[in-house]
Structure formats: C-alpha cells, structure tokens
C-alpha cells in the first residue's frame, strides 16, 4: 500500500515537471535505469578519449593540436561530472568503473570504430558529437535533477566540439583532392554508425516504455534520429560532401528526410563486443588502469602516513 502511494506521488511529481533529487524516494527500477544510463554515458566519455587520442600526436597544426587536446580534456571532465551524478544514486565511481573494466557495462558503440585518417577527427566531432548533442539537449529536461543539470553544462561544451569537427571536415572538403577524398571517406564510414547511435527503432527498443513515462527520456530514438538527420544533410551539402545513402530523399509531406534502413546486424554485433576496436578499447583502458595501480597505492599510503602523523601530533 505504502509503495503504491509513494509511486503515485512520484509519478505526480514527474507529471508536474518537478525534478527528482538524490534523497527523494524513487522506484527501484527508476534508480537502476538511471544508474545504467548515466554510467554508460560516463564510460562513453572516457572510452571516447581513445579514438581522438589516436590522432592527437599527429595533429597537422599546433592550433589543431591544442583544440583537439582541449576537447579530449573536456570529455574527461564530462566523465567526472557524470560519475558524480551517477554516484548520487548510491553506487561509487569505483563500482561503476569495475563494471566497465570487466565488460559488464556498455559504452557507446561508436567508439569501437577506428579513426583511420585526420578527417575522422572531423567526422567524429561533426557527426558523433552532433548526434550526441541532439540526445543531450533533450536530456537537459530529464526528470533526474543531477543528470539534467550536468547535461546543461555538457551541452555547452559539446556544441564547441561539434563546430571543431565541422571546421576540420569543411577545411578538408575544400582542400586538395586527397583531402577531399579523405573527408568523403570519413563521412562514408561514420554516417551509418552515427545514426545508429540513437539505438534501435522505437518498435524494437525494450527500454523506452517506463523511461518515457518517467521522463528520463524526453524523446524516442526514432524522433531524435530524424532530428539529427534533418539538420545534418544540409551541413553536408554546404561543404560538397555526399551522405552515403541512396534512399535519402526530402519528404515534403512529413517535412523531413526519408532515409535507408540501417544494418542492425552490424549494430548488435558491435554492441555485443564484435566492433573493430572493441577489444582494443577495453584493453587500453584496463592497461592504463593497471599501470596506475602502484601510483594510486603510493598516493594512498602517503595520505595515510600524513594522517597518522597529524593524529600523533
């Protein structure tokens, strides 16, 4: 009885657009859904440092290098905010990171694709961050207070990332024939994985039901995907690149683009760990973490010594 009453009050708050805060009562499924979603989001920021880090040392100008380094640093910072937001749900950063380390937790599949040329730094910023922004703008209104507030700050930085990527790809598209070829190739490789970042079609998405009712999700996968495609097609046209989808066509009636079917076999195979870089990304994370073990132990030992000295004094 008690729980039903609490659940009704909870839903009433959600319906009235009142944010849920860490100490408020919440259904266990709501808590679990957010723990999973926010930590996956945090893990994506952390793993996402790798494909861009792959070109950091080879950036072709000093300006490009500092912009890229600043961007990757922002991502590490986003990871920090998001782990903090996730910790308000009663689980520690160490626990979340253990789930990443052991492969139990997922992160965005897009980071399991390789970055093969400098143009990929453009494609990642323009398309991957572009897709992420569409999702994150909508999450600024999510019902869980700490997550929504984190998103407001993150969105500001993400829009700078998207412009950084678009600038790289636009410069290359108007550059030498080799540069233009690299830009088109990057678009060809990143287009489909980017639009699959929004997840399965609504009809095949098992997590959508309660998430929409609880206003964790403010728009469905298909709505977000459509909004991303509608704004990106024009951006490609401006710089003279072609979206690699023969079925892409403006639909006057819907006021949106129709587009071809995505390769869901590939999507699920990458989600399940079969992406070209899946093993590499996780191994890289684990190696860095393991190599740092002695450093973390030393820092702890040093702090313990200082504390006991103070206690004696």
């Amino acid at each position, binding site marked *: 009885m008690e729980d039903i009453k609490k659940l009704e009050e909870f839903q009433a708050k959600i319906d009235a657009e009142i944010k849920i805060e860490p100490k408020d009562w919440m259904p266990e499924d709501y808590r679990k859904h957010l723990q999973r979603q926010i930590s996956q989001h945090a893990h994506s920021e952390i793993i996402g440092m790798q494909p861009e880090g792959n070109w950091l040392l080879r950036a072709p100008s000093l300006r490009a290098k500092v912009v890229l*380094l600043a961007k*990757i640093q922002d991502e590490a910072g986003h990871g920090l905010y998001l782990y903090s937001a996730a910790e308000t749900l009663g689980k520690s950063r160490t626990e979340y990171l253990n789930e990443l380390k052991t492969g139990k937790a997922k992160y965005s599949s897009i980071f399991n694709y390789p970055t093969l040329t400098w143009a990929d730094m453009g494609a990642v910023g323009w398309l991957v961050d572009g897709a992420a922004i569409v999702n994150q703008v909508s999450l600024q209104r999510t019902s869980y207070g700490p997550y929504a507030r984190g998103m407001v700050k993150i969105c500001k930085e993400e829009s700078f990332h998207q412009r950084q990527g678009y600038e790289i790809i636009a410069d290359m598209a108007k*550059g030498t024939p080799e540069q233009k070829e690299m830009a088109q190739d990057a678009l060809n490789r990143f287009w489909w994985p980017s639009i699959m970042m929004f997840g399965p079609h609504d009809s095949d998405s098992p997590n959508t039901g309660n998430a929409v009712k609880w206003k964790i999700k403010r728009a469905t996968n298909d709505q977000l995907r459509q909004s991303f495609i509608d704004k990106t097609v024009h951006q490609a046209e401006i710089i003279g690149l072609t979206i690699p989808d023969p079925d892409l066509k403006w639909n006057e009636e819907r006021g949106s683009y129709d587009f071809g079917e995505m390769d869901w076999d590939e999507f699920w195979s990458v989600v399940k760990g079969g992406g070209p870089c899946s093993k590499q990304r996780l191994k890289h994370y684990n190696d860095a*973490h393991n190599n740092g073990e002695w450093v973390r132990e030393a820092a702890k030992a040093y702090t313990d010594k200082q504390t006991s000295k103070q206690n004696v004094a």
Partner: protein
Amino acid sequence: MTKNEALVKYCLRLGDSSLILGQRMAEWCSNGPVLEEDIAMSNIGLDLFGQSRTMLTYAGEIEGKDRTENDFAFKRLEREFFNNLMSERPNGHFGDTVVRNLFLSAHTYHLYKKLSSSSDNTIAAFAAKSLKEVTYHLRHSAEWVVRLGDGTKESHSKTQQSVNDLWEYTADLFAMNEVDELLIKENIAIDLNEIKPLWDNTINEVLERATLTRPEDSFMQKGSLNGMHSEALGHLLTEMQFLPRAYPDAKW
C-alpha cells in the same frame, strides 16, 4: 652572430622545449593513473603548447623570413631543434614523468621569474604569463614526487631510479654558448649560472621531502645547444610531423 640571430635561437630553445615536453604530455592522454591526473596532464600539455606557440611565432617575426609557428614545428629536422635534452626524455612510467617534469619545471620556474624583467618586452611578457603556468607545473610534479618517494616501498624505489636515470640530463639545462653571452649583455637573457643555485635549492628541498637521495654528478649529457639530441627525438618528430610532410601542399 647578430643580436637578432641570437634572439631567434633563444626563442627556439624556449619554444622547442615547451613543444617537445607538450607532445610528451599529450602522450599521457587516456593513459593516466586516475581520471583527475589525465585532466591535469592535459592541462599542463595545453599550457606548454601555448607557450611554444608564442615563442615560435616570435622567432618567426624576428627572423623575418615568413616562417610561422607551424613551419618551425613541422618542417624542421632533428638537428635544427634546440629543445633541452630533458624535455625529449620518453615518458616511461608515471614516476619517470613526474621526476622529469620536476627537473624541468623547477628550471623554467626560476628562469621565467628572472626573464619577466628581460629588456625584450615580448620575452618579459611571455615569461610573466608562463610563470603562472609553470608555478602550477612545479607544484604538480613536486607533490607527486613527494607522494611517490614517501609512498610505498615500491614507489620509493621506482622513483629513486627515475631520479638516478634522469640526473645525467640536468647539466644540459644550464649549458650556455655565444647566444647567451650576447643576449646577457643586452639584458635580454639570464645567466644560467644564477639559476643553477636556485634550482639546486628547489630540487634538494623536494627530494628531501620525498625521502629521495640526490645523485652525485658524474657523466652528464649535453648537446642541445648544437642540435645534438638523443635518438628519442627523431621518433617523436616523425609522428608529430607526419601529416604536413606527407601532404606538403595541404592546408589544415
């Protein structure tokens, strides 16, 4: 050698040392022992690249041959770089990195403090701005050397080894030649003999707090003033310069 020729070389020394160390710091990206350290090391890298850009751009202006920061960074060969030998030491493990950075940031900290009253306005302004940054770099590296030195048995022995291994590159930080002679007379550059005792004090103090032993001076490596580097620099440049060299006509 004219004053301007000397000044170009002096700017390249400062700019190259920041650039090469910045590149080393960028190598840490996504490899730090904790997320906070990844962010800190990126910060240091960003400061260093910024410092380098100022000095390389200024070198180009004085030289008057239309060379830009990117021409200097991406289109010179190993023997044309004047970064100190310490800055190109490979990252090794985290202890090697923070010891190397301690030796370097203690050097730039004392140098920039004095250079901020250089008679060359650009150098003085550069030094004053950079001093704020390297003050943090020194604090960061010194605190880590203390934590690692006075941490566990393992961290102590690893970090003492780092100190021992890197010691032979410290003398190169204080080497001078006719460039210095000329610019010291003009009150542009600082006599590094004035910096050495200050550096010694800082290093001794940090090593003592870290319960580490200062090595005896024995064989000391030198050569950066003549563009004589270790093998490590060539590999760093190969990676860093790849795109502008593979596509010389491209603009990025």
